C-alpha cells in the first residue's frame, strides 16, 4: 500500500506533467501547484483516473483577480480532494485579463458547471467548452463583472474609506 501524501503527489506530477508545472508551494500544509492552462484538463483527467491518486472530488473552484501582476491578472483556483487517500490538492492557473479564456473542467467534473458559471459571472473568465456559460447569481443584463478589483464596493467619491485605511 503506497501512502499518498503531498510528497507523493509532487513526485507523481513531476514524473508525468513535468512541463506543465510552473510552481509548487505548501502554504499551511496545503499542496498548491501552479500549472499551465494548456495542460490543465489532461492533468485533471489523469489524477482523477489514476488508480492510486484517485482525486475524485472537485471541492471548489473560484477565481481571483490580481490587477497588479501583468499577464497574470486572473487566477482560477481548483480545490481537489481524494476521498480514498484523504489528501487535498490546490491547482492554480493564471491567465491574462486581456484574453480571459481557460478550458472548462465540466468534461471532467459535472459539479464544475455552476462553479464555472459563478466564476464567469464574477470575473468574466470564459470557460471554453462549458455547456451553458451564462450568469448565475447576478442579473443577465449586468454589463460588468463585479468582483474585479476595479469595481469599488462603495461610492467612489467617498474619501473616508480609501484603500490606505485597509492596510494596502
Amino acid at each position, binding site marked *: 500500500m503506497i501512502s499518498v501524501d503531498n510528497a507523493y503527489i509532487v513526485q507523481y506530477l513531476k514524473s508525468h506533467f513535468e512541463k506543465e508545472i510552473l510552481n509548487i508551494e505548501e*502554504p*499551511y500544509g*496545503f499542496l*498548491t501547484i501552479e500549472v499551465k492552462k494548456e495542460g490543465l484538463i489532461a492533468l485533471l483527467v489523469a489524477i482523477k483516473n489514476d488508480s492510486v491518486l484517485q482525486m*475524485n*472530488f*472537485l*471541492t*471548489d473552484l*473560484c477565481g*481571483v*483577480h490580481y490587477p497588479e501582476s501583468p499577464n497574470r491578472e486572473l487566477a482560477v*483556483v481548483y*480545490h481537489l480532494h481524494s*476521498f480514498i487517500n*484523504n489528501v*487535498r490538492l*490546490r491547482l492554480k492557473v493564471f491567465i491574462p485579463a486581456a484574453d480571459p479564456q481557460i478550458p472548462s473542467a465540466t468534461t471532467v*467534473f*459535472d*459539479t464544475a*458547471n*455552476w*462553479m464555472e458559471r*459563478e466564476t464567469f459571472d*464574477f470575473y468574466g473568465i470564459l470557460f471554453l467548452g462549458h455547456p451553458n456559460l451564462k*450568469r*448565475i*447569481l*447576478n*442579473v443577465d443584463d449586468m454589463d460588468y463583472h*463585479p*468582483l474585479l478589483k476595479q469595481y469599488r*464596493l*462603495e461610492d467612489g467619491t467617498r474619501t473616508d*474609506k480609501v484603500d490606505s*485605511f*485597509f*492596510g*494596502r
Partner: protein
Amino acid sequence: MSQSLEKIAKESISGELTTLNLGPTHPATHGIFQNVLQMDGEKIHSAEQTIGYIHRAFEKLAERRPFNQITPITDRLNYCSSPINNMGWHMTMEKLLRIELPKRVEYMRVIIMELARIADHLVCNAVIGVDTGALTGFTYMFQEREHIYDMFEEVCGARLTTNIGRIGGFERDFNPIFHQKLQKFLKEFPARFQEFADLLERNRIFMDRTIKCGPISAQRALDYGFTGPNLRAAGVDYDVRVMNPYSSYQDFDFTIPVGTNGDTYDRFMVRQQEILESLKIIEQACNNLPEGDYKADVPEFYLPPKDKVYHNMEALIYHFKIVMGETNVPVGEVYHCVEGGNGELGYYLISDGGRTPYRLHFRRPCFIYYQAYPEMIKGSLLSDAILTMSSMNVIAGELDA
C-alpha cells in the same frame, strides 16, 4: 422547441408541453428560487433553475470588511445553523494566524455547533413532514428548536443570526442558566424526538410518499459535488468531522449514518440518525468539558472586555488596534472546511497582509448540490419535486451568498 421536445409534446394528451413557473415566491419552495418546468401533464419533462434572487455579494463585501466584521456575513449563509458558519470562519482565521485554542473552547464550540446541527436537521425533517402532509410533527419540532435558540440566546444574546463567538474563542463563558437549559434539553428532547420519529419513520403514507422519490446514485452524487447528509444518504460516508477533524472532534465517539438509495426517505433517515449522534456528542462534550479559559490568549485579535478598555491603557490600545484593523496578519492562503448542516462548508481565504481579506471564497454546499436538482426530478411528478427540494435542504441564503 427542439425536435425531441416536439415529439414528446405530440405524444402527450393535450398535444403540447406546459411551461410552469415554480417560484420565485412559491410557498412550497421554502425560499426564493425559481424553477421553469416543462410539464407533460403532471410529469416533469425538464427543469431549469434560476437562482440569485437574494444574492448579496458576500464575497465582494468581505473584501471590504475587517476580519471580525465578516462573522455577521457568515450568519446569513445557512441561517438555520448560523453558529457552524460563524465558527467555521473563526477557525479559518485561527488557522491563518496560527492560534492555539484551549481545549475548553473547542469543546464549547462542539456543543454549540452540534446544537446548531440539531436545529438545522429538525427544520429540514419537520418540513419534509409538512410537504408530505404531516403538519403535526413540524409544530412539535419547532418548539424544540426554540429551546435550542434559547440556549444560543444565553451564550450570545441572539437567536437566529447568532454572530456567536470571536476569533480566539467566545465572548463570555457559558453561564449557569445555559448549563441548566442544556441539561433540561438533553433530558427531555430524546423523548419528544422519539414521538416525532414514531409519527413518520415507519408511517406507511410517509414511506410510500418518500421512498424512491428524487433518488441519486452515489456516483452521480460525487460527480455533482454532494456533501453532507445528501451524500451520505447515497451511501458515501464522507463527513468532514471524521475525515479532517477540527475543533477536537477526534475526541468524541460517534458514527456516521449512511443511506443506500439516496432518495428522500434516506435523506430524511440520515438526518434523523445524525440528530441522535449529535446528542451523543453533546453529552460527551458536556460531561468532559475541560477546565480552563473560554478564549485563547491573543490580545492582538481578541477584543478586551469593556471595563478593561476604560481603565487599562494596554487594553485600550488593543481595542483601538483591533477596531481600526491595525494589527498585522500573515500573508498567505488557507482553506478550512467544517461539516455544516448541509455538508462541507469551506472558506478559502487569501490574505495579503491587509486589514481585510484579499479574497474570500465560500464553498457553499447548497449552491454546489442544487445543480443536480433537474436530474433528480426528471420524469417525476410535481409533488415529488417539491418533496425532493425540501429533502435536499436548499437554503436560499447559502445558495445565493
